[in-house]
């Protein structure tokens, strides 16, 4: 058991900074409300260090407080993502274990027009000096860009005989990504195609957890490099072949 708490300047002092807006007019009462609110959240030694009116009806607060809440760090489990293979590793792994080129197809779907993320994974030049999958000798990569209908993506995946489909979602306001990703899986299942493909979701607010919940094989968030994706697909294909 390893109980941990936030650290300000002394171990376990529990110091936390918060900021939020309350729908009240600034003044002594508003500040008291912010203090009591923060206490209600479980903090002690609460100090409202700044209160600024945003309009007649809203006030923004910066607050420092301490919490006695602790969490057992030993109990935190994360699926440790296996250290991915690099560019060379992925290619030779495919050559050795799959013995043919693999095909991947990707798009940013729905009304979402953000291409930079999917480009980072698929395009030749890649991202932050990490080559994109297009440059991998053992991978055929098709990048459809953005604003692609789920239907079109699936149709083209079948046409190109893809092994993996990559779906990027960047806009998440009002959970538009959840609707869109769910719809994608539903369409695949309706067509009886779900097991034919490895399907991956990605984007800055996508976590592996969320993607698994929605029925994808994996999810990739911020800081993903092409080799993470290449490694995952290759290993997963081999795993599928084994079964």
């Amino acid at each position, binding site marked *: 058991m390893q109980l941990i708490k936030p650290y300000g300047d002394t171990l376990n002092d529990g110091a936390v900074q918060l900021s939020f807006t309350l729908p009240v007019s600034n003044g002594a009462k508003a500040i008291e409300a912010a203090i009591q609110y923060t206490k209600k959240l479980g903090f002690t030694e609460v100090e409202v260090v700044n209160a600024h009116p945003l309009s007649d009806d809203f006030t923004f607060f910066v607050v420092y407080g301490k919490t006695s809440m602790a969490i057992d760090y030993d109990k935190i489990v994360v699926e440790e993502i296996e250290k991915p293979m690099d560019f060379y590793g992925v290619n030779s792994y495919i050559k050795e274990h799959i013995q043919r080129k693999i095909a991947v197809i990707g798009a940013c779907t729905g009304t979402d*027009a953000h291409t930079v993320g999917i480009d980072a994974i698929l395009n030749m030049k890649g991202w932050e000096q990490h080559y994109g999958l297009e440059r991998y000798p053992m991978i055929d990569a098709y990048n459809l860009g953005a604003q692609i209908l789920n239907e079109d993506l699936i149709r083209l995946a079948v046409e190109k005989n893809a092994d993996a489909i990559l779906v990027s979602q960047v806009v998440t306001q009002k959970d538009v990504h959840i609707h869109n990703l769910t719809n994608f899986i539903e369409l695949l299942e309706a067509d009886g195609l779900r097991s034919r493909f490895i399907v991956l979701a990605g984007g800055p607010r996508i976590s592996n957890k969320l993607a698994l919940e929605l029925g994808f094989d994996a999810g990739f968030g911020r800081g993903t490099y092409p080799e993470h994706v290449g490694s995952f697909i290759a290993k997963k294909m081999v795993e599928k072949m084994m079964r």
Partner: protein
Amino acid sequence: MNRSKLDLDPEKIDYAREISKKITQPVQDYISGHTTVSVERTTLRMLGADGIDANEVPVPNLIIQQLKDRVGEGAAKFYINALLKKGLTPSALNSEIANGLDISTLEWAESTQIEKKAAELVQSFSSRVKENVRFRNEKLTQFNSSQSTPLLYLIVATGNIYEDVKQAQGAAIQGADVIAVIRTTGQSLLDYVPFGPTTEGFGGTYATQENFKIMRKALDEVGEKIGKYIRLVNYCSGLCMPEIAVMGALERLDMMLNDSMYGILFRDINMYRTFVDQKFSRMVNSFAEIVINTGEDNYLTTSDAFEKAYTVTASQFINEQFAYESGMPARLMGLGHAFEMNPEMKNGFLFEMAQAQMAREIFPEAPLKYMPPTKYMTGDIFKGYAMNTLFNFIAKSTNQGILLLGMLTEAIHTPFMQDRYLGVANARYVLNSMADFADDIEFRKDGIMQTRAKDVLDQSISFLEQISEKGLFNAIEQRLFAEVARPKNGGKGLDGVYEKTDGYYNPMYSFLERELKIN
């Protein structure tokens, strides 16, 4: 005030303008010979067409459907004819059309009568817009002292117009000079303009005339309260570019995002469609004295800001020429650019400053629109706040006109109310603290900034030369812009382009040409 700091060669600048003119001229020829469904719908709206049918199809769209392949003749005469033949006011006629009246099959009234009626409708459109202009100028004069330079520009993006109103009024109180209502993600690809007040959008709110009206009123109200004229912005972009321009002219919007090529490159809208549409939209904006905001920042969110800086400058030259050709004076050209260099880059600040100063010196009268860091913003809101500080610094020290305020949560969510306040507070602090810095420094001769600006100008010129040689249509097809290739006959909306027939009739178009003195 604006002594040259960069020591750019004026002949090179003139030369760049010349090539740009050569680039846009052939496009101009194409435009003259064509119209589009949205140009016609725009004209109809100017004449008074409005409203929707039971399926929520707007009346202007219903009319275009009725015309089928006769769009090339111009829709105006059909609408005016119907007014005459049915003896109805526009609003009564609109209801009839919404209820199924087909105006393409009516008998023709006398052409002199049509022209007389047209003149009357032109007059009524013209006076409404002129009244808007007069009112805006009056308010700007009245509240003159409270306008800051650059103008502080904030966005609202809740998706719900009523929620937007609250946030916009709050933003005005916090110090915004300009409020942009961000549009819902899908709208630029809709080939019609939704109707009425709306409360459901993703990442933004639908642009509808009613939403414009609601927000205009809200901003006028808060403006009176705080003694300031608050400018309202929307998007005159996508498949309904000119229609939205007219809605904006009628509802007294003050600025419009409006770019001659954005739709082609970033929305995959057909190039012919876009070029025809953008011209008419800009004529409307010019007439209504609406400042346009061009979209050069978009090049940098996709490509590297250091390497592709010249594409921004080149695009500014092209946008400028297209704008001139629409009768737009330089003072309405909010040419865009952005602070998007990698924050880890050594001397990135100097390169940003050189670029911003270059735009300032090349386009001395344009109220440049300067976009904040977005691409390299991360969840580190503190770092983001520091980046926004330097961004504001450059904006002021290079005399930018319109300052889109950076949001410290750019990488996380559309702005919270406090994010906007923090954005304004940062800008106000910086702008005031170094108010006269621009005038107090000079750039070292042949220093990093001077050299950089010269290099970028040279690169822009060779880029423009290359485009000129190929022709703009081919250049776009051949992936010269924004790292995308757009086939001439690809993209959305090509089916809405029509060759003008010999008898093409458009009294609004002709009126604007006269007013704006377009040859």
